[in-house]
């Protein structure tokens, strides 16, 4: 893939912002937040299963990238709000994401024996415990946001409620669950519209939610929130699409099914990648004048999602 400049006027991301360092330091903060949120206590079996699902450690495919929380914190910091306002929601995003993955890996779905190079939760703890671990991670996410978000100051209760509703929407029947449902329908027979719909629901919704939560917690106005939503959704789909392109061309990890490529064809897929990049950069451009260098993380995410300029797990292993 050929690198595309953000825009003629926007500064290049690499000039003054190191995404790898930013991301790596945030992963450490999110991991410690998650670790503290899930102490071992009775009944130990369920808490152990929940920790297994959320804190996968460095398996053979490396540590979790924690993209949703990083996007959430970046959106919040873009608006000049303290990181502490967004960190609990960032951790909650990982809990919700993990809950969905635990259920998605179940024998009645993908029957995935491993995730990130380690046994999936049902493989390690049994199917019944995996169902319950997912069921317990959803409410833990809300508990965590409520207990740890600095509220009512600087985050008013009404804003906290909007964040909670947004988190619940993203994993609900019109969000991620819809994507998982559509995915069940059988990817082989899908056309372009359906494939893009699956990607948007399964991955776009979660990324939109990350950016939207960061926006709300950072005190965004309606226009800013809407722009960050569009930006997040675009980034989420872009990231997955590039993953498929890379696995098809042998550059990335192999996915279980390359249905996107099968449905779209490589040329069309690359065309969509360019469209999504341009869209995401257009959204980021809206913030460039007002927020100056704070917009740099947004540009660099676009480049990273499209180019995968570095391997994040290396950065985690040797900070």
């Amino acid at each position, binding site marked *: 893939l050929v690198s595309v400049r953000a825009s003629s006027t926007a500064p290049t991301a690499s000039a003054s912002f190191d995404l790898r360092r930013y991301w790596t330091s945030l992963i450490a903060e999110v991991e410690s937040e998650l670790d503290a949120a899930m102490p071992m*206590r*009775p*009944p130990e*079996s*369920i*808490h152990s299963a*929940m920790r297994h699902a959320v804190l996968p450690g460095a398996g053979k495919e490396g540590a979790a990238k924690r993209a949703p929380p990083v996007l959430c914190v970046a959106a919040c910091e873009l608006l000049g709000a303290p990181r502490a306002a967004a960190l609990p929601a960032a951790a909650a995003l990982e809990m919700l994401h993990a*809950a*969905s993955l635990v*259920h998605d890996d*179940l*024998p*009645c*779905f993908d029957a995935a024996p491993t995730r990130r190079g380690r046994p999936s939760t049902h493989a390690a703890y049994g*199917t*019944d*415990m995996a*169902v*319950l671990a*997912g*069921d*317990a991670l*959803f*409410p*833990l996410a*809300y*508990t965590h946001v*409520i*207990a740890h978000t600095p*509220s*009512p100051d600087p985050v*008013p*209760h*009404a804003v*906290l*409620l*909007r964040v*909670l*509703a947004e*988190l*619940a*929407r993203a*994993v*609900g*029947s*019109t*969000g991620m*669950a*819809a994507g*998982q*449902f*559509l995915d*069940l329908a059988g990817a082989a027979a899908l056309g372009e519209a359906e494939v893009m719909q699956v990607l948007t629901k399964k991955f776009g919704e979660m990324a939109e939610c990350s950016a939207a939560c960061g926006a709300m917690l950072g005190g965004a106005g309606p226009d800013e929130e809407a722009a960050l939503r569009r930006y997040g959704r675009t980034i989420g789909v872009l990231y997955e699409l590039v993953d498929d392109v890379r696995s098809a061309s042998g550059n990335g990890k192999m996915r279980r099914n390359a249905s996107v490529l099968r449905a779209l064809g490589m040329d069309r897929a690359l065309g969509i990648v360019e469209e999504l990049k341009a869209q995401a950069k257009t959204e980021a451009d809206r913030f460039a004048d007002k927020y100056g260098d704070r917009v740099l993380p947004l540009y660099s995410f676009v480049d990273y999602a499209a180019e995968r300029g570095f391997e994040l797990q290396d950065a985690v292993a040797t900070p």
Partner: protein
Amino acid sequence: MAFHPLAASRVHLAPLLPCPAAPASAAHRRRFSAIVATAAASATTEFDFKAYMGERAAAVNRALDAAIPAGEPPAALHDAMRYALLAGGKRVRPALCLAACGVAGGREAWAMPPAAAVEMVHTMSLVHDDLPCMDDDDLRRGKPTCHVVYGEPIAVLAGDALLSLAFRHMACVDSYPPDVDPEKHPARVVRAIGELARCIGSEGLVAGQVVDLEMTGSTGNVPLERLEYIHLHKTAALLEASVVIGAIIGGGSDEQIERLRKYARSIGLLFQVVDDILDVTKSSEELGKTAGKDLASDKTTYPKLLGLDKSREFAEKLLCEAREQLAEFDKEKAAPLLHLANYIAYRQN
């Protein structure tokens, strides 16, 4: 969850609380009923419990129907959610939530979103509980279970979606009537959502399910304390949430909320003790679910540990404890909660 230890374990040691003691005889059930019928009549002569429950169930059903995104795809997922959620049922949890809001000084309509939320959570827990990897039940409320109709993966997703919808519906400002106090309402809702999440998570409802799972298959009887732990978490926790979030939304004081919490724990355990009793005394047809299942699966129950009569005595004691908590409230406003407690004690299915 830090439950105060209830006294099931002391049922054969300590005397019953100031309640008419029932002799362990064959006529026990009839006499037990007579006692309550008198008490109910003296509390509020005009209160029509059947009408109250009928109206609340209808209102809750309308709220549930309206809460599922209409016309939005995927239709089959929303169908599965509707199938599980609108299958009928007595709507005891929503009724508790609404009644608690009223007792705490609020308008019942304020608590309709949380009332719908607890029913969604309850339904979700049933859908997942019925899965082949869990209890493997084919029949629920007299109808085929969700996974039998829609398949396992959709049942898992429908449950997850109902759980999410519960929190989304409760958090959305648009779910509430316009006359809520604009100053105090958001903080109350945040607190109520925190209560609900805590009560159904790994230290509440799920904890009960986990310990229950770990007991299944173990030989010999489960100790009484362990049985109580399971029921306090698996059943009482969601009843506690229903009552407490209703009281919070209604603007109850901390003291009122804690009193109602104790009430809810007592009737929560009562609910399960009665369930155990019904399982051995009623047919599948009467129950709308498989009867005698506990016996067949060699599951530990109160009748098995204490015997049927002691179990009924314990139920009566729990009912008395619940009613004591209501004594401090306005009699008229507390009537629905009093009758709900009686109903839970004396239901026939």
